[in-house]
């Protein structure tokens, strides 16, 4: 390529030096322009944009770096993934809309956000739907996970793989939570989701929707008594500076999803599609290892900062929210999925 470019360029300069006529100069200029365009057309490297809203230190970002590396290796550099972190290209639901209109290739969103786009994702976000970590992975890696990933295609959002986002637990400022009864009367911050607020109501607490960015001050000023999230988020958000009790009740295991625009997907050749799909699947276990590492580090760090880690009896918590799962069984499609998940062996 570079040889081609050089030869064209030197030819042009030669011309304009030997005969200094205006016309020839113009011709040489247009030749240069032609050369540039010719190069543009012959460009062999295809780039797919990947946008997400996490910071670059996050374990899930590291998983995506691994994904990009694998795509590059498989394609011998012919297909690359450009990662745009920190929400540069918009929030999670904005990125999904960009996928639907085909302006963005791939994004990473929480399965909670996917709910509003593809309803089958709801079952993954129910409280205590997973019996254990191993069960959670079995569900995500198994046929149910695949069915849910594929269900997005109808909405022009093709799921590539699940990334682990741990499980979410309560943290409180003044009153520690040892059993579900302790939640009653507490104001707990929840995500913008019906399921999340129902869960808190079932336990007797009052759910307060507050945006993640405002939560630090809200905890500090006592607008809420607590919140819930996974250990790395609890640590990275510095909420542990105010919330001194962390109850590992592990109520939900909402995964992250790598989603691709079907419009961009269909533009790829079959070979390229395979590279992307394989790389995504292979990057999932790598990401899980990163996540484990960061979870352990975070728990250690918050403990050192004086946070009391409480390990309650999880089955009590599970019982108190059982009615929510029953409620979702009203929908026959979701009922089938929920039953399949409950039958899956860890």
């Amino acid at each position, binding site marked *: 390529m570079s040889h081609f470019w050089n030869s064209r360029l030197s030819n042009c300069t030669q011309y304009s030096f030997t005969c200094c006529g205006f016309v020839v100069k113009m011709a040489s200029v247009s030749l240069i322009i032609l050369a540039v365009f010719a190069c543009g057309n012959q460009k062999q490297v295809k780039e797919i944009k990947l946008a997400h809203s996490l910071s670059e230190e996050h374990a899930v970002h590291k998983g995506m770096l691994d994904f990009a590396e694998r795509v590059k290796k498989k394609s011998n550099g012919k297909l690359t993934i450009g990662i745009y972190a920190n929400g540069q290209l918009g929030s999670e*639901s904005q990125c999904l*809309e960009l996928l*639907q*209109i085909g302006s963005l290739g791939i994004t990473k969103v929480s399965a909670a*956000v996917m*709910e*509003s*786009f593809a309803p089958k994702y709801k079952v993954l976000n129910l409280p205590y739907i997973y019996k254990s970590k191993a069960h959670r992975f079995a569900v995500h890696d198994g046929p149910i996970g695949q069915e849910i990933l594929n269900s997005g295609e109808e*909405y*022009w959002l093709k799921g590539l793989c699940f990334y682990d986002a741990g499980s979410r637990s309560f943290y409180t400022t003044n009153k520690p939570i040892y059993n579900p009864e302790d939640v009653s009367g507490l*104001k707990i911050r929840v995500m*913008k*989701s*019906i399921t999340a*607020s129902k869960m808190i*109501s079932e336990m007797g607490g*009052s*759910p*307060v*929707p507050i945006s993640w960015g405002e939560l630090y001050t809200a905890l500090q000023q006592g*607008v809420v008594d607590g919140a819930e999230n996974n250990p790395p988020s609890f640590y990275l958000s510095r909420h542990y500076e105010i919330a001194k009790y962390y109850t590992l009740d592990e109520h939900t295991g909402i995964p992250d999803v790598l989603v691709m625009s079907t419009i961009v997907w269909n533009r790829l050749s079959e070979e390229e599609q395979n590279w992307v799909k394989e790389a995504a699947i292979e990057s999932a276990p790598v990401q899980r290892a990163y996540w484990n590492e960061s979870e352990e580090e975070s728990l250690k760090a918050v403990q050192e900062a004086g946070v009391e880690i409480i390990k309650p009896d999880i089955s009590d918590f599970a019982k108190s929210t059982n009615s929510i799962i029953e409620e979702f069984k009203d929908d026959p499609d979701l009922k089938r999925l929920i039953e399949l998940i409950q039958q899956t062996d860890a």
Partner: protein
Amino acid sequence: MRKVLDEINRSLLIALSILMVLSALLQVFARTIDLNAQFTEELTIFSMMWVTLFGSAYAFGIKKHIAIDILSSSLGAENQKRLAVFIEVVIILFTVLILLIGGGRFVWITFKLGQVSAVMHIPKGWIYLALPVSGLIILFYSILNIIDEVKKA
């Protein structure tokens, strides 16, 4: 014609602004009196989107948008008129391409794929409908402005 549209637009804007303020207030109260009013956040955002888009359409109608008039004030009467028509044509181009075609396509996709809002579960297409609808209003005002400009002579 223009007066009717102005009137409709104005009352809609007033109603939406009141709705926006009330739902924001309700959210603040809900936090202190233990009431779960999750819908307020979405309602505030959505009414703000509508206020912004319809407000800017209204501003086109009464010609209250920010304008830098160095060029126009240095021109003669005839050229000023030509410039005014040219500006309206540019506005029409923008409106048709971005708001009507782009916005319309976006609304169509959102309806087709059935995206709903996270809390209130209303189809997002209804919310994004503000784009092509405000586009129509701007288009209408721009045409009226051109007619006025031509008649002035």
